[in-house]
């Protein structure tokens, strides 16, 4: 039982946990028996506690600056890389601190600081972990987590770091479309599959060849900045125009976002709907909406064509098409995908659940269940390094099967030079400025005359698509020391520190939660006590009655403070003082039952 590995879909809009039971993947249920399907929203309360999921989403309109949604769009990014649209329409404040790492600024409360997307994603993972543990009655320590296939090294690292901060060992990061193909159990039949994954924030297309249980990705393409969020925006922008609101405040945006999402979903089954918000009733037809959505859908089709080209197969050769992500419920999307591939896509597995279910299958494979399945995935974007004049020399080409590696020899230009810097980038363009900067590696070597050192550097991409760099100075045999400065990521030390901090915060959070729980309890017990006093108080000994009233008043006062222990004591004292009152009540109930009356009539 301790070997449990779960599959987690950490989505832009929703996050899920799944595991395999009796050979079949299923969504894990929480202690209440509900499937764990958590909106990826985190809200930071003034008292320091953190809400995740549905409760957090409900606060979006009242506390927009403290409620964070779509954090996945910011993973592994710098502030300059966040689009203007995002900056205008995300209600929370973005800042950049230290290196080029975007953070979310939360004002006030115990977390009055800028939080990295890794930390906020960790809050979501922690919620999933806690709820899964409560439901399963066992600890959840290890997980397979999915990411969009088109995520680059920085975004994958950020996801792994989020797991670490949440106290989860991320055994494996797999690509969402690949996971979906696993969930469909298509392994039994050899052939070519296209997985079209249009999620809340990202788009992926993967072309796979299945051969005797081996799921081999031939090519992948996508856009980590294109998703259902963009389609919601079409409607949000229309509503803003209708309202004549040029500089909308955060609350209005939150309300409109909700209304837009609702309207979008209604338009998948109806020809027309009305987008409703305070002071607004905007009729929208499916035709209008689809016309505005078409350019976005066309962009996804262009990506599909490029993936097919890279895979060296034609659209008509594809044997099966699988749809993933909530956006694929849109009739326009289904129609366009069907046109491109000339066949009806599979839609039998819930597009919201399919990725988590596939992650659970991979978790099952890793736990040594004997399932004969192997995933061979690819690196989505070429890896290169900076050369003279700001050009990029490609080291590993996109769509190469991973793990893979490239080796390169470096030397020094000056006598006694002890430092060689290597700038690693990811992307398809020729110039440094057009590629994503991943990291600067500093190779430290013993002093030698110029041109003498021969530093053998291996750039290794592991099975998760994450880069490792190893270096050796060949003449001295010395291992060259490497310092890694991730451009848009956290160093190992930073991750460890945040993890330790989060343990302390967890204590704060627990305290805050206890306070909230106690106050709720106080409210309940006071209401009950007053009710009982008004009903049967006259039958109580006047001294006892005075004591109950005094303790109730006292507790009301204590509950306004922050001393949880004092509130706990007050609750116990009131319970003690109210015992005679409770006895009279019980007596009444007992008598009523003997007389065959319903309890309600007695009260």
């Amino acid at each position, binding site marked *: 039982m301790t070997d449990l590995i779960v599959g987690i879909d950490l989505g832009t809009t929703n996050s899920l946990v799944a595991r395999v039971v009796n050979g079949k993947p299923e969504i894990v249920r929480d202690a209440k028996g509900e499937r764990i399907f958590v909106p990826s929203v985190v809200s930071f309360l003034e008292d320091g506690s953190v809400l995740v999921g549905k409760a957090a989403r409900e606060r979006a309109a009242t506390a927009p600056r403290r409620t964070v949604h779509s954090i996945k769009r910011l993973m592994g990014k710098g502030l300059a890389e966040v689009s203007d649209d995002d900056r205008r329409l995300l209600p929370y404040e973005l800042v950049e601190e230290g290196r080029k790492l975007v953070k979310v600024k939360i004002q006030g409360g115990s977390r009055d600081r800028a939080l990295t997307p890794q930390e906020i994603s960790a809050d979501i993972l922690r919620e999933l972990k806690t709820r899964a543990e409560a439901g399963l009655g066992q600890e959840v320590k290890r997980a397979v987590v999915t990411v969009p296939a088109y995520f680059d090294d920085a975004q994958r690292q950020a996801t792994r770091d989020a797991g670490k901060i949440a106290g989860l060992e991320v055994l494996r990061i797999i690509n969402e479309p690949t996971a979906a193909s696993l969930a469909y159990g298509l392994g039994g039949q050899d052939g070519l599959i296209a997985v079209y994954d249009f999620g809340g924030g990202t788009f992926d297309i993967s072309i796979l060849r299945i*051969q005797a249980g081996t799921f*081999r990705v031939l090519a992948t393409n996508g856009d980590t900045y294109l998703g259902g969020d963009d389609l919601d925006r079409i409607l949000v922008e229309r509503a803003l125009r209708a309202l004549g609101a040029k500089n909308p405040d955060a609350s209005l945006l939150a309300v409109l976002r909700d209304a837009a999402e609702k309207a979008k979903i209604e338009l998948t089954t109806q020809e027309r709907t009305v987008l409703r918000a305070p002071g607004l009733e905007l009729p929208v037809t499916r035709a209008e909406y689809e016309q505005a959505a078409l350019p976005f859908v066309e962009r996804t089709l262009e990506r599909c064509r490029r993936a097919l080209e890279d895979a060296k197969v034609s659209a008509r050769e594809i044997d099966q098409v699988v749809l993933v992500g909530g956006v694929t419920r849109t009739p326009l999307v289904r129609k366009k995908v069907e046109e491109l591939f000339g066949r009806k896509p599979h839609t039998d597995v819930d597009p919201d659940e399919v990725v988590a279910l596939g992650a659970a299958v*991979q978790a099952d494979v*890793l*736990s*040594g269940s004997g399932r004969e399945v192997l*995933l061979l995935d690819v690196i989505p974007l070429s890896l290169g390094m900076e050369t003279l004049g700001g050009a990029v020399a490609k080291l590993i080409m996109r769509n190469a*099967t991973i793990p893979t590696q490239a080796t390169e020899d470096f030397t020094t230009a000056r006598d006694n030079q002890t430092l060689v810097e290597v700038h690693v980038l990811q992307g398809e363009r020729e110039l440094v400025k057009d590629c994503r900067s991943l990291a600067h590696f500093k190779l430290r070597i013993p002093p030698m005359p110029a041109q003498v050192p021969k530093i053998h550097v291996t750039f290794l991409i*592991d*099975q998760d698509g994450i880069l490792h760099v190893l270096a050796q100075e060949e003449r001295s045999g010395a291992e060259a020391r490497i310092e890694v400065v991730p451009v848009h990521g956290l160093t190992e030390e930073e991750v460890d520190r945040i993890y330790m901090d989060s343990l302390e915060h967890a204590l704060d959070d627990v305290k805050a939660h206890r306070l909230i729980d106690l106050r709720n309890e106080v409210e309940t017990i006071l209401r009950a006590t007053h009710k009982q006093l008004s009903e049967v108080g006259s039958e109580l000994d006047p001294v006892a009655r005075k004591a109950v009233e005094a303790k109730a008043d006292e507790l009301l006062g204590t509950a306004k403070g922050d001393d949880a222990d004092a509130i706990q004591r007050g609750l116990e004292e009131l319970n003690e003082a109210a015992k005679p009152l409770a006895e009279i009540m019980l007596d009444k109930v007992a008598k009523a039952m003997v007389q065959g009356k319903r309890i309600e009539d007695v009260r």
Partner: protein
Amino acid sequence: MTRDPTRSARFDAVKSGDHFALFGLERRFDLDDAALEKAFLDLSRKLHPDKQLAVKSDESLPRRQQRSLALSAAMNQAYAALKDRHKRAEHLLKLLGGQTADQDKRTPPGFLAEMLEHRELLEEGDTARLEPLLASLEKREADTWTRLSQLFRAGDISQIRLELNTLKYVTNLIEELRKKLRG
């Protein structure tokens, strides 16, 4: 019970750097694609780091995973090198004891001047003249590959070097022409 496949003697081939030996293939330029694919999938199933969690061994898991990762990466690198005919030709030439492009930069007389002329034409950008140029270069590229295949069978490593040196220019030019003409 399950033997650790990452310890098999065959993977000495990784260290020796002979990609053909790694996949158990004959050293030849005209590769049997189906045989390479089969060997690649068979090896992947044995070597992939995902398969290590289930393997029973006295050695610690992290060490085995580390080795499996290194071997898988080297194998996939070798696969990519064999799959691409340019890389395959360079690799085979090296195994046959030939020189690298850096060591032997020869080209036939008049070749560089001719390439320079074509480049000037490319920069002028007259589509009507570029189309026939592209067609003739594509023909030339195909012919060179046919010759290379024969030269590899004959083992003429000096001539192979010369042909590969010219091929680099021709292939680059074709790519640029295609970009210009087809976008």
